């Protein structure tokens, strides 16, 4: 799971682990690079 955070959100495993230990849901990332639709 921690590797998934790394792959999906570029989140260091230690950061993800600490966040989860504090009761945070680290799976919901803030917005990152935007992908614009063609118009």
């Amino acid at each position: 799971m921690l590797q998934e955070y790394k792959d999906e959100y570029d989140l260091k495993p230690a950061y993800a682990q600490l966040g989860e230990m504090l009761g945070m849901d680290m799976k919901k990332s803030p917005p990152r690079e935007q992908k614009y639709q063609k118009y």
Partner: protein
Amino acid sequence: MVYMVTLEEVHELGTELERWLRMRVHPIAVKMLKGREDVPPDAVIPTRDWGHKFALCQAFAKAQRDGQTVAMFKEDMWCFEPVLGLGLAESIPYFEEGNHRYPDSVRTLEDAGEWCRNMPHLEYGVYKGIAVGPVNTCSFMPQVVTMHVNGMQMSQLLIVKNWIDGRDVHSQLSGHAVCNYAVVPPLLTGECNVAIPCKGDRRLAMAQDDEIMFSLLPDMLRRGHPVPAGA
């Protein structure tokens, strides 16, 4: 007699400050929330209204660039350092031992723990959340006003600080967790503060290479002006 600044004056004097410094972005009004009942009526709550979490620096960016008021509780936070710094969660040994800083950003675990234990923080449980908004239109009375400024603007602010009370600004500086370093010390000491944008602020929230953060107490906006008669 201490003159307490009003919200109308915060708007008026904050706007004057922006114009005088020719700022690129609004100063950010910051208020700590003791519960959901304190959420400003115009505030966006990221998980409720946007369906995703936010980093606190991103909320700062929304306030200063878009004029958006954002309220965040622990469940809205994606970055854990403000969660600990603002006292929204109780610190744990894993954090205080420095495990998230070693080996990437501090070369020994012992020194990483030293940084973690010294990170500015509020007592756990006093507050449940934080609200931020642009100082020129904020719907709440801020406890702290913090702002991204360049070197020239910082000089001007420090000169004004000296003019007001003759005292220099003493700050604890770090390249990490600017949200905590900008907001927590003024809340604890009632003094101005300087802080350095962290990597998160730069990467997630568009802090610019030439920007530094300056924090002041709203009352200082008035202390730079003549106090109204009878106040």
